[in-house]
């Protein structure tokens, strides 16, 4: 019977379209698509928006199911780890209580710094929208993900995304009920940063090769800048997309770069990108902030 069906197949294939022509046709279509979408970026936006608008509700649904299943799995595998962690955390709580007292004192100092650098419009006061990560880039090389809020909730392109108290990334695409976020650890990302203590500017850029070590690159630091480990990097004033004063992370391994023209270093982001679930989108754009400043200065 196997023989007969093979014969049938061979017969069928002869009556079928020659695969080489189909390959050529598809190849042409793809090349044209690549060219057109690369040259004229907005031509395919309606198609993208349509596909994403259709898929997002399904993704939200399946994410709930997936989260439920993985939670069940984790309960079994995590119990022992959790018990150990519990003991460890209890000890840590005592430690932190002490530390907290010291920090409260330092907070006054920090406020003084903030006043000094005019960071009084703190990001905690910006209007925010809470969102959930519903899907991630399918190739696992990049750090691009999609959240479940879109233009319906007032989200626009280039809005900043934070989690906890640190910068996550920026909105690069937005639809009715979804938005695409490029995180700062993505290879294509580069953020204009600033050292909180010294006001020296720098460029924070993602680097996939450092992914497992948990940090990303900082470059273009002024050669004369006095930077030491654990200094905080925040987003700078000169960025045209990022709001100023959002914490990015803590610096380490400062060294002079190969060209001996500037310093470079690593920064450990404060956000845990591996387990990112809930994020906040700051619904104020950088330009709006600038306009606001102008209005205020006019008033004065």
């Amino acid at each position, binding site marked *: 019977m196997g023989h007969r069906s093979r014969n049938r197949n061979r017969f069928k294939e002869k009556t079928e379209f020659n695969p080489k022509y189909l390959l050529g046709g*598809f190849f042409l279509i793809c090349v044209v698509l690549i060219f057109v979408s690369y040259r004229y970026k907005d031509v395919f936006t309606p198609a993208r928006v349509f596909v994403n608008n259709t898929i997002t509700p399904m993704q939200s649904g399946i994410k709930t*199911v*997936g989260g439920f*299943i993985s939670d069940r799995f984790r309960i079994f595998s995590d119990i022992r780890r959790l018990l150990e962690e519990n003991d460890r955390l209890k000890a840590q709580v005592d430690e932190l209580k002490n530390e907290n007292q010291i920090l409260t004192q330092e907070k006054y100092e920090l406020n003084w710094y903030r006043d000094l650098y005019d960071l009084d419009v703190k990001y905690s006061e910006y209007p925010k929208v809470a969102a959930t990560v519903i899907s991630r880039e*399918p190739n*696992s090389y990049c750090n691009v993900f999609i959240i479940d809020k879109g233009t319906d909730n007032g989200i626009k392109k280039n809005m900043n995304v934070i989690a906890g108290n640190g910068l996550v990334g920026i909105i690069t695409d937005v639809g009715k009920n979804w938005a695409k976020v490029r995180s700062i650890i993505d290879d294509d990302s580069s953020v204009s940063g600033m050292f909180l203590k010294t006001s020296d500017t720098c460029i924070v850029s993602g680097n996939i090769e450092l992914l*497992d070590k948990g940090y990303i690159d900082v470059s273009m630091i002024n050669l004369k800048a006095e930077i030491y480990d654990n200094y905080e990097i925040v987003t700078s004033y000169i960025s045209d997309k990022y709001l100023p004063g959002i914490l990015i992370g803590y610096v380490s391994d400062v060294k002079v770069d190969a060209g001996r023209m500037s310093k470079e270093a690593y920064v450990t982001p404060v956000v845990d990108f591996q387990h990112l679930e809930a994020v906040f989108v700051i619904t104020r754009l950088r330009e709006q902030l600038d306009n606001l400043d102008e209005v205020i200065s006019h008033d004065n």
Partner: protein
Amino acid sequence: MIIRGIAAILQILLLYLMQTGVFTSFALAGVVPDLLIIPVVAIAFTRGQNRGMVTGFVCGLLIDLTYSSFIGLFALMYMFIGFLSGFAHKIYDENDYTMPVILISISELFYNLLYYVFFYFLSGRLNIGFYLYRFMIPKVIYTVLVSLLLYRLFNLENIFFKRFDRE
């Protein structure tokens, strides 16, 4: 024919959702399996080059439209995988479960190499050893593990529909 097409589209959609949504919670070594490679290779192997290419084109376009910054590259890569694995259709046998697994692992490696060349090598990241060790090999292993189960389902589906074709 039409029922098969609709079934294939639904399966692709489901696999896409699994890949971007569910499997991100089950990432091993930080990688997610490329589930969409499996229907492309499975259909090319069980049903021939033409259908493999169409499946590849649809799968690639789905990724292009949702995650790529320009359209057509993933469609091209997946379509090419469908074309190449379709050559093995000549030796397709309903009871052969080794060949598709070999095909899927080669396709996955091929796809990842292309991806590396287009997105990293051309932008000056020459450290291929790192990408091979950190991303490509784990992805191939994970994808093959998932395909052991998934290919069976695709094959059963093919056998099931074939019965109707005969009648």
